[in-house]
């Protein structure tokens, strides 16, 4: 039986901090930055006292900042005490799951106005400790002793995918190039540079330092150069991996019957779904993410939409192969066709199914708990026609977000519709 929300839920405001590495800021500073932007985005304004609950996605402030029990602290920092404040942890899907819990909180009738947050401060730890902290999102008893890292898991999925579908590893590089093209047009992105910008920067640096000037034929030549783009976990190289990031994002949700008080330009949540799975070896297929398929099917059924109805999507490209698998798991392309779609530019802004117009996790940055919420910020901008230089033509009507935790132990999908 198709499940429906018991009452409608709309997004009436969004905000996000700049994503990047900010040694002088804590996660709460970054969330304040996001919240202040959200306040300016609500068309008719809002009284912070209207907010009845705060759901906050955060993977591991315990490990990254030695701070647990973060939600009430952040709530206090933006003046929300004593509202119920909840930290949600589902690894890299924490933000998307926090959003879903807030949607369900309003749909249930318990709340009318809920603030959703996502935040992570990752760059204080040395790189190896960040790798170890992220690895704790996998099964530390039975997967990590094999020597796996997160790039390693996705690299293994890439070998299974390419072997099963006779794919071309160049498709991975094409995903990275495309997401940097989009990220270059996003002032909030950690890497707002195209790959040619990165190449020019390296040449300029070499000249400045009097070092031999590197020469590359084109972007692909640069990305294949093991010096410029070192191997992390074969076949994934540095530019296949989302970065270690700091950032925060915020979304204000209200019940359908209160929308007019806040805005005449609401975005409605018309579908949501979430699913779980065991660790990677337990799955029947290693070349796609079954929980993402299940979450997508739930969301499409609730929304009464099909993949063809989706104008654009923000998907969880923690690694380039993840975007290719997502493009199939969500039904945009048939199994085995996702890598070809990436090669043919079908997921570019001028393609048939634009994916990650924000630059995605790859270029925008991936402060893990914030990512699922920041995806909604991009959907809001595209649906309002305010995405600036990266705006899709014709002002799209329906957008989708896809947020994955771990290797797919959690997936959460939302579908949004412009109703103005």
């Amino acid at each position: 039986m198709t499940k429906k929300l018991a009452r409608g839920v709309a997004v009436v405001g969004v905000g996000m901090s700049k994503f990047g590495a900010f040694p002088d800021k804590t996660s709460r500073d970054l969330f304040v930055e996001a919240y202040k932007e959200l306040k300016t985005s609500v068309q008719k304004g809002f009284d912070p006292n209207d907010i009845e609950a705060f759901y906050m996605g955060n993977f591991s402030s315990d490990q990254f900042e030695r701070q647990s029990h973060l939600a009430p602290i952040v709530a206090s920092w933006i003046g929300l005490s004593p509202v119920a404040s909840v930290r949600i942890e589902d690894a890299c899907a924490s933000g998307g799951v926090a959003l879903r819990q807030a949607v369900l909180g309003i749909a249930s009738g318990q709340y009318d106005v809920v603030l959703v947050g996502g935040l992570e401060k990752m760059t204080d730890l040395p790189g190896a400790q960040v790798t170890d902290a992220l690895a704790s999102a996998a099964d530390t008893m039975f997967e990590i002793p094999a020597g796996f890292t997160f790039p390693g898991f996705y690299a293994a999925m890439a070998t299974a995918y390419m072997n099963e579908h006779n794919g071309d590893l160049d498709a991975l590089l094409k995903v990275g190039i495309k997401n940097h093209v989009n990220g270059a047009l996003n002032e909030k992105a950690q890497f707002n540079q195209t790959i040619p910008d990165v190449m020019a920067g390296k040449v300029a640096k070499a000249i400045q330092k009097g070092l031999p000037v590197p020469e590359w034929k084109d972007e692909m030549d640069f990305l294949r150069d093991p010096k410029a783009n070192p191997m992390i976990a074969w076949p994934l190289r540095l530019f296949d991996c989302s970065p270690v990031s700091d950032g925060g994002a915020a979304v204000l949700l209200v019940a359908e019957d209160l929308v007019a008080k806040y805005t005449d330009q609401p975005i409605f949540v018309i579908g949501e779904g979430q699913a779980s799975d065991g660790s990677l070896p337990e799955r029947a297929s290693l070349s796609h993410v079954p929980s993402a398929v299940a979450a997508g099917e739930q969301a499409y059924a609730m929304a009464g939409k099909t993949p063809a109805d989706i104008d654009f999507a923000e998907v969880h490209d923690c690694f380039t192969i993840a975007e290719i698998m997502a493009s199939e798991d969500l039904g945009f392309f048939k199994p085995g066709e996702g890598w070809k779609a990436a090669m043919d530019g079908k997921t570019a802004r001028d393609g048939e199914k634009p994916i990650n117009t924000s630059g995605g996790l790859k270029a925008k940055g991936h402060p893990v708990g914030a990512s699922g919420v920041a995806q909604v910020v991009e959907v809001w901008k595209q649906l309002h026609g305010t995405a600036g230089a990266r705006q899709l033509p014709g002002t799209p009507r329906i957008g989708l977000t896809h947020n994955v935790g771990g290797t797919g132990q959690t997936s959460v999908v939302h579908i949004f519709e412009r109703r103005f």
Partner: protein
Amino acid sequence: MSDSKLETKTFYDALNQNELIGSKCANCGHVAIPQRYICPVCHSEKMERLVFSGKAELAAYTVIYIPPTEMVNAGYDAKHPYCTGIVTLAEGPRMSAQIIGLDLSQPQDIKIGMPLKMTIIDRGPEGSTKKVLAFEPA
């Protein structure tokens, strides 16, 4: 079977005895690794301990150049990478493990589907090694 304990840590107790264990559901026959108390397929609690043959084939793999701390401590780095993967055991289920004994200079030449056999390796700095599951070409 003399030892029918299913506690999670008995997996490593068995590994220290050079045995790879899992569970088999007495109701539906589903085989799981690591061992489970409750069958993930039919929810039966009639679970028996199973010792795997150690025969397997490669299902997915990677060669890791930027290792986690435990592998750095075991001597691996970008110049000394290692292969890890997911193997399909002859009895059906899959498991993660380090894959040893392969030429890692051309990772693209490693073949998914290649036959493997289980081995137990000692990993870690001298004096504080621990026994870890691994596979090698059969």
